[in-house]
C-alpha cells in the first residue's frame, strides 16, 4: 500500500508544476498547491489525507454536485456517486427541511477495504478509498459492509441506451447508436478518457462489478480539484489535506465544530460537515422592487 502511494507521489511531483495550478484559476487550486508543496517537503513518510469539508450554511441544495459528478464520471442512471439525504420535519407552516449532500466518506478505517477479499477496494493516493474494476469479482461484500450505502453495483450492462437503434421518431430523429457513431464516441458520447487513464477499466464500468466515488482521483492526481468541488455554485465544498494545518480544509475544521456521519462506528470518515443551514443568520427584509 505504501509503495503505491509513494509511486503516485513521485508521479505527482514530476508532472505537476506551479503553472498548472495558476491555469486552473480557482481559489481552491491554490489551496491544493500549498498542500502539495507541504507534502513534498515532508517526504513520502507523511502522506496526504485528502478530505472534503461541506459547508451546510452555504449549501443551497441545488444538486449541482450530483449532476456534475454524473457528467464527469459518466455515472449510469440509477447510481449516484454523489448523492443527498433530505429530511422534512414539522407541520406546515412550521416546517424544517434539511438537505445533506453525501458522497463516499473515504474512511480512514474503511469497512469496505477490510471486507474486500481480492483487494479491489483499497487505499490509494491521498488516502482515497479506491476501487480497481479489474480485480472486482462482484461479491458485494463492500456494499454490505459500508455504513453509508455509497457503493453501488451494476445489475445490468450500463449505458445500453447508447447501443440501441430505437429512434424517438422513426426515420426522422437519430437513434442513440447513430449519435454515438457520429461523435466517434467510445460507447457513449460523453466518455471521459482521463477516468480510464487513471485506473484501467474505470472509464466505462460494466455489469457485475461495483463502483463508487473516487474523489475524482484522475483530477486530483493532476492537481485539479474534484469536479463536484469546482462546480458547486455556492462554494460549499472545500477539499484539502488534513495533514497540512494550513490547508483550507484544515482551517475550516479548526474554525468550526465539524460533524461526520455515523462517527460512533469508528470508521473515521473524511467527509466533514460544518455549520448548518440557519435562515435566522440572514437579515429579514421586505425585499425590494
Amino acid at each position, binding site marked *: 500500500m505504501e509503495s503505491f502511494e509513494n509511486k503516485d507521489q513521485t508521479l505527482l511531483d514530476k508532472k505537476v508544476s506551479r503553472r498548472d495550478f495558476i491555469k486552473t484559476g480557482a481559489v481552491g487550486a491554490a489551496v491544493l498547491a500549498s498542500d502539495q508543496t507541504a507534502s513534498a517537503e515532508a517526504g513520502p513518510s507523511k502522506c496526504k489525507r485528502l478530505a472534503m469539508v461541506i459547508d451546510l450554511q452555504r449549501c443551497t441544495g441545488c444538486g449541482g454536485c450530483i449532476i456534475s459528478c454524473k457528467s464527469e464520471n459518466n455515472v449510469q442512471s440509477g447510481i449516484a456517486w454523489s448523492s443527498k439525504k433530505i429530511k422534512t420535519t414539522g407541520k406546515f407552516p412550521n416546517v424544517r427541511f434539511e438537505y445533506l449532500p453525501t458522497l463516499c466518506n473515504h474512511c480512514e478505517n474503511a469497512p469496505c477495504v477490510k471486507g474486500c477479499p481480492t483487494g479491489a477496494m483499497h487505499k490509494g493516493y491521498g488516502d482515497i478509498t479506491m476501487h480497481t474494476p479489474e480485480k472486482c469479482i462482484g*461479491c458485494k461484500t463492500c456494499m454490505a*459492509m459500508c455504513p453509508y450505502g455509497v457503493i453501488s453495483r451494476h445489475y445490468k450492462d450500463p449505458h445500453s441506451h447508447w447501443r440501441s437503434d430505437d429512434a424517438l421518431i422513426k426515420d426522422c430523429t437519430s437513434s442513440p447508436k447513430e449519435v454515438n457513431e457520429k461523435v466517434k464516441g467510445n460507447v457513449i458520447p460523453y466518455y471521459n478518457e482521463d477516468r480510464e487513464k487513471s485506473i484501467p477499466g474505470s472509464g466505462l464500468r460494466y455489469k*457485475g462489478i*461495483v463502483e463508487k466515488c473516487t474523489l475524482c482521483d484522475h483530477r486530483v492526481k493532476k492537481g485539479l480539484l474534484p469536479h463536484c468541488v469546482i462546480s458547486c455554485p455556492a462554494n460549499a465544498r472545500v477539499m484539502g489535506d488534513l495533514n497540512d494545518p494550513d490547508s483550507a480544509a484544515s482551517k475550516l475544521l479548526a474554525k468550526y465544530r465539524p460533524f461526520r456521519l455515523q462517527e460512533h462506528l469508528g470508521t473515521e470518515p473524511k467527509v466533514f460537515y460544518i455549520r448548518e443551514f440557519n435562515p435566522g443568520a440572514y437579515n429579514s427584509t421586505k425585499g425590494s422592487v
Partner: protein
Amino acid sequence: MSEQGAVAHLAYDWMVVTYFFFGGLSVGAYMFSVAANYWKQEFKPLAKRGAVLSLIALAIGMLILLHDLGQPFRAWRLFLSFNPHSVVSWGVWFLNAFIFFNFIYNVLLFTGKEANAQKFAYAGLPFAILTATYTGMLLAQAPSRLLWHTALMPVLFLNGGLISGIAFVMFFSAKPQNSALLSKLGKLVTWLLVLELVMVFGEFVLLLNGGTDHVAVAKSLLSGKLGFLFIGVEIILGAVIPAAILLRGKASVFTQALASMLILIGIFTMRYVIVVGGQLI
C-alpha cells in the same frame, strides 16, 4: 434521515440467502454423517445418505454462490490475493477445504475404504464448523448493521446449519423402516430448535434494550412483511409446529417428512430474515 435519490440495492439478496442455507445445511448433514458413522452407531444406516446429501447441497450452494458473483469467471482472484482483515477471504479457504474433505470422504465411503474415510472425515470436521460459522462472522463484520453486528451470528448460523442438515437427512429418509430412528433424530432436532429460539430471544433482549437504532431494528422485525416471515413462518411454522409434531412421540412417516420440511422452510426463513432484515436499517 431518509435517503432519496440514491438507489438502495440490497447487497446480499436471495442468492446469498440460498447459499447460506445450502452451505449450512451441507455442514449439518456432514456432521450428522460423521457422528452417525463413528460415534452413534445406531444411526449408521443413515450415514451414507447424509454424506451424499451433504455433497449435493454443497454443490447447489456453490453454484448459487458463483451465480451471485458479478464476475464469476474472476473467482480465481480469491485464491491469489489474501486480505487477512476480510472474513470472505478466510471463508474461501475454509469452504474449499470443506469441499475437498467432503468429496474425498464421500468417495472413500462409497468405495468401502472405511479406515481412510474416518481420517478424512475427522480432518474435514474443523473446516465444516468454520464453513458454517464464517458466514455468520461475515455478517458480524459489518459495523453498521445492528442485527448482524453481534457475536451470536456465527453460533446461530452453525446451529441453523445443524438443524437444517439433520432435517434434510430426515426428509430424504422418511420410510417406515427408518421410523424409529427418525423419531430419535426428531427429538435431537427439537432440542436444537429450542436452542435457536433461546438465541433469537436473546437477540431481541439485546435489541429492545439498546439504543434507538437497535429498537428500530427490533420493531422492523416484528411488524410488516418481515414480521410475518419472522413470527409466522420462522417461529411458528418453522419451529413451534414441527417441534410439537416431533415431540408427540408416535409420528407417522408422513408427519415426520412434513415436520422436517417445515423445519427446512423455517431455517431458510431465518436466514432470509437475518440477511435481508439486517440491511433494511
